[in-house]
């Protein structure tokens, strides 16, 4: 067994070493793959706050991923066509600035999470799963019929958005941005889980009534977690759209929600680096198995089955054992 701390460091090292090698060996495609892994990891770290800490099995996180994507798509579309987003009551122009797009993605997905969470948290268990799924489908079909922004065909953005001081068209620079954000969010998540809020949320997942007797509202704790979770996944959506320079309704699809959840299950639910390990394994399989067979998802399914049946803690759990007390 390898200590979880060392395993986490090793996973993080992959995110530094592989792109560094790819940059040196002039393999931009590998950098793009790693960018994809980092962004998927970020989306799943977001979901893991709701799923792992809060016990909220949300099958609708693609909503936030998609909102982030469309925040980027819509703002950049108006910037590249030189048309204002709206003219009344005040003029809002499009933008190609990543910080502005990120902020918009975070705010909009947090707001959506607030509304969806408020309504969904009246239920629990399988009903919660179904109602989040239903919200996901609502957004999916709305985006399909939203012809102003491409409808089913989605929206292409010709040039990647900019970040002050960087040339984001260079894969390694855009990767650096994504990795920095992932690291900051991981640090934030680590602190969150150890904060009184995170501890109370953890307790609320297991014994809601005991949490109530000490004066905390379990529903409110879960709602706050859901909002934070949605905001992070939304930010990942904006980055994902920028990576592909394309947004489409598939970002809202329930398969997307399922994929984000699969990252967490492969890596390890409620483990800090679980989603990161899961996203890395997923992207690696997608690349290597996808090269062998069009039906690579069959193998992914088999892997998922093995992990769920024999290694409940995911990759992190299999390698470093059960979670230990933290001092």
């Amino acid at each position, binding site marked *: 067994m390898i200590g979880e701390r060392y395993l986490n460091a090793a996973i993080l090292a992959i995110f530094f070493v592989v792109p560094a090698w790819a940059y040196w060996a002039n393999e931009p495609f590998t950098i793009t793959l790693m960018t994809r892994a980092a962004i998927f990891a970020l989306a799943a770290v977001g979901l893991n706050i709701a799923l792992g800490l809060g016990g909220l099995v949300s099958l609708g996180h693609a909503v936030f991923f998609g909102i982030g994507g469309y925040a980027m798509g819509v703002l950049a579309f108006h910037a590249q066509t030189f048309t204002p987003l709206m003219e009344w009551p005040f003029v809002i122009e499009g933008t190609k600035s990543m910080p502005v797009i990120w902020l918009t993605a975070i705010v909009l997905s947090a707001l959506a999470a607030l509304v969806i969470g408020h309504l969904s948290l009246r239920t629990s268990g399988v009903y919660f799963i179904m109602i989040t799924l239903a919200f996901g489908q609502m957004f999916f079909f709305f985006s399909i019929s939203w012809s102003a922004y491409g409808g089913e065909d989605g929206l292409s953005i010709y040039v990647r958005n900019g970040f002050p001081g960087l040339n984001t068209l260079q894969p390694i620079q855009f990767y650096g941005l994504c990795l920095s954000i992932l690291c900051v969010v991981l640090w934030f998540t680590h602190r969150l889980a*150890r904060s*009184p809020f995170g501890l109370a949320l953890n307790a609320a997942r*297991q014994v809601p009534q005991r*949490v*109530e*007797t*000490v004066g905390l509202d379990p529903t409110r704790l879960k709602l706050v977690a859901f909002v934070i979770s949605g905001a992070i996944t939304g930010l990942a959506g904006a980055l994902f759209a920028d990576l592909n320079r394309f947004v489409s309704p598939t970002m809202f699809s329930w398969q997307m929600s399922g994929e984000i959840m699969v990252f967490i299950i492969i890596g390890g639910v409620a483990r800090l680096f679980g989603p990161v390990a899961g996203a890395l394994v997923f992207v690696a399989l997608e690349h290597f198995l996808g090269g062998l067979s069009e039906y690579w998802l069959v193998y992914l399914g088999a892997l998922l089955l093995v992990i769920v049946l024999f290694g409940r803690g995911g990759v992190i759990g299999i390698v470093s054992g059960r979670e230990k*007390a933290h001092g």
Partner: protein
Amino acid sequence: MSLLSVSNIEATYGASQALFGVDLQIAEGEVVALMGRNGMGKTTTVKCICGMLPFAGSITFGGHDLGRLPSHRAARLGLGLVPEGRRCFASLTVYENLIAAARPGYWSHQRVVELFPRLGERRNQISASLSGGEQQMLAIGRALMTNPTLLILDEATEGLAPIIKQEIWAAIARLKTETGLSILMIDKSLKELRAICDGATIIERGRTVWSGEMAALTNDVTERYVGV
């Protein structure tokens, strides 16, 4: 005016009625024993006070009507419950249990550890792995960390070794003398209750049948209602 005033409450579990008229008063700084045989409604009364069970009648606490308040709101008004059976947050460490519920006030992690030094020694241990006595101390500590104005101890010494019981009684005595906290106690040990409590209320089959100062509680009364 009393801090907690329970007047004539009735409560039911589904079809069966458990409380038929319980009255209970606790003044500021007072320590009151809630007594009665098993199944007479002591814990049910506590559940009503803490908003965990709907009731008919009235309960006021510090001037607030507890009528339909959810239990987390009642707890925020200053009710600190140490539930029967301890009920720590099993997957959290001792320290995490304490800070998860903390609200600002006199009680801090440091003060709780002064009261129960064992909790300091076990700081980073998962609470599920503590002994029964240590879990009880943790449950009391956790309730204190919310800085309550009324501490409710439901069978805080039940099923513990005599030496641990003594430690807990000593801590409760310190709470009374050093901080003047109001306490409602449910316990089986009449001797200790007599030593520590100012007043007592006895319930029998869901009704208050005796209420008054501890000094006025004669052996006749306790033999009749409590069986000792």
